[in-house]
């Protein structure tokens, strides 16, 4: 499953896009748990949201292989 990363999340991961293997029926929370283990500096952020198909996702939402998934660290536009 492809994951897009932006801002400080991109810097922590070291790439704008990574490939992750997730179990079937894995949720947004499962993905965050896996990423925070793999990249501990993500834990230090004020927040880390997941967008699925360009919408903010709920923690229990199930991820599909065909989804566009993105890591959204604290936003700071304007």
């Amino acid at each position, binding site marked *: 499953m492809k994951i897009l990363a932006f*801002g400080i999340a991109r810097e922590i991961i070291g790439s704008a896009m990574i490939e992750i293997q997730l179990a079937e029926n894995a949720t947004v929370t499962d993905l965050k748990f896996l990423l925070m283990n793999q990249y501990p500096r993500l834990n230090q*952020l004020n927040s880390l949201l997941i*967008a699925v198909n*360009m*919408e903010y996702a709920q923690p229990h939402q199930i991820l599909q292989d065909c989804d566009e998934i993105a890591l*959204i660290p604290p*936003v*700071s*536009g304007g």
Partner: protein
Amino acid sequence: MIDIQLLHTPLQTESCIAHVEDAEAGGIAVFIGTVRRKTQQKTVVRLEFEGYEPMAIAEMRKIAAKTVEKYGVIRFSMHHRVGILYPSEVAVVIAVSTAHRAASFEACRYAIDTLKETVPIWKKEVFEDGSVWVAAHP
């Protein structure tokens, strides 16, 4: 009626204002967000903005729809810039027209406050001696 743009080039404030002009309107309010030279006593050399562009546009559209509904906005324009910006450059322009002035001020404020909370755009402040992603850490 709604004009949303995410641009890699300098913003044209006049074009946002022109978009919201309307004979039904009694007022136009404009918010222009600019790059401040000092932040917490440190001198900013430049800001580096990046966006998750298709989602940023989608979230800006949601704000536009909500602002129109909530404040009876007649016409709405919101342009945000990404890329490298230097002090005094314009990062965001919001223009709204409404029948009466009070609603135009409130609508403009609601739109910029919501943009700062929900639109996936990030800025990195670059100082002479380092850099920081704004709002990333406690």
